[in-house]
């Protein structure tokens, strides 16, 4: 017995012949969604969006336009904490650069003991060190006859907490900041291997200590006071 009812769609379908001579409905193809053309369009749109969005970040990179001049031989690579440092007694390189607002910042062998702090915006330890040092500085002035100079280096527009100038501004950073160039020349000259890096030099411009990692501000001030008291100019 023939089926009394067929779906209307099947009834309207063109049919093929079958073994019995009755026509067999042709399988109906659903309209397929053009997935890959849509995907390619989405990728192109995202590419355009990414280009527009990153234009501001790249052009605003302070390291891109920074110029740093290093004089003197570079220090060997800074060792891990606790290991012997072959740079002890070596002359610190002299570095000339600029701050974020274009003012001259120099590291010179000028008869004054120094603490040079290398920081980067994407390092979580630097983000602890900077506010700790600033809080200590708010209560205790830099020991007389010494200098603390910071260097903002390894700037990365894709990195966390970018840009570095806004970060330091948020922290109320009062110490001089030199902006390292895109090749991280200043950091390389001082043998930086890990952030933050403290480099202490005596009045003769010789390295007395390098510390990679968090260094408590109280200890920083202690080292500078000791260097200042043993300075021949005092």
């Amino acid at each position, binding site marked *: 017995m023939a089926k009394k009812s067929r779906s209307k769609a099947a009834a309207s379908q063109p049919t093929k012949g079958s073994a019995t001579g009755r026509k067999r409905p042709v*399988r109906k193809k*659903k309209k397929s969604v053009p997935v890959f053309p849509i995907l390619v369009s989405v990728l192109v749109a995202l590419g355009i969006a990414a280009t527009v969005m990153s234009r501001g970040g790249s052009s605003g990179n302070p390291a891109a336009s920074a110029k740093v001049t290093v004089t003197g031989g570079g220090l060997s690579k800074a060792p891990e904490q606790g290991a012997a440092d072959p740079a002890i007694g070596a002359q610190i390189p002299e570095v000339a650069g600029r701050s974020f607002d274009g003012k001259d910042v120099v590291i010179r062998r000028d008869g004054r003991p120094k603490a040079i702090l290398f920081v980067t915006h994407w390092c979580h330890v630097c983000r602890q060190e900077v506010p700790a040092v600033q809080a200590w500085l708010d209560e205790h002035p830099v020991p007389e006859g010494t200098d603390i100079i910071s260097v903002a280096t390894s700037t990365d527009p894709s*990195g966390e907490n970018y840009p570095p100038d806004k970060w330091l501004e948020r922290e109320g950073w009062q110490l001089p900041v030199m902006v390292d160039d895109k090749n991280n020349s200043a950091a390389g000259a001082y043998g930086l291997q890990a952030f933050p890096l403290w480099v202490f030099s005596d009045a003769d411009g010789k390295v007395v200590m390098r510390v990679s990692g968090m260094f408590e501000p109280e200890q920083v001030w202690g080292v500078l006071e000791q260097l200042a008291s043993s300075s021949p100019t005092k």
Partner: protein
Amino acid sequence: MSVDTLTTFFALLTVLSNVAVVVAVVLWIGGLFSPAVAEVGARLRDSLSGSALALAWSVAAVSMAGSLYYSEIAHIPPCLLCWYQRIAMYPLAIILGIAAIKKDVGIRIYALVLAGVGTIIATYHYQLERFPDQTSIACRLDTPCSTTTIWKFHYVSFPFMAISGFLVIAVLLMIARAPQELEGDDVDDEDALLPEERG
């Protein structure tokens, strides 16, 4: 094209994949309680299921290409956990490609295991980035796994990109269907055999 531009592009892809996974999960859970939502989910699944294997392969291939770009062209060396995630993702780029050509959904279980392992490792890596004091007191230049190398839209980093890739691959694998399953949908079963042709 700068590294930052490409990073922004991959981060936008990550956000898109996050939206896709969230939509899939919402439709799946909603479909358990609402027939209307189930119907929407079924239609969406039907429109994608035929291309799902190829899409999953695309995600794995782009993930692999992206990771190679960062290490070989941008010279950002992968950390140890990044290597483990690569071990999970790179085979997917090969086996899903073969499965897509052969339209073999039997790949599902093998690929899901790889995606699952990769997700677990990437999740551990992501939390290590967020709580780096677990392992480091300094940020080394040689890319420790606790360093957040890239950071976009306040939540996208390398391991999060990996998590997103693995999850969207898993969702696509779950909705993939074999060609014979798809053909069965195109025909009213009553018309598949004429009455006198049935036994």
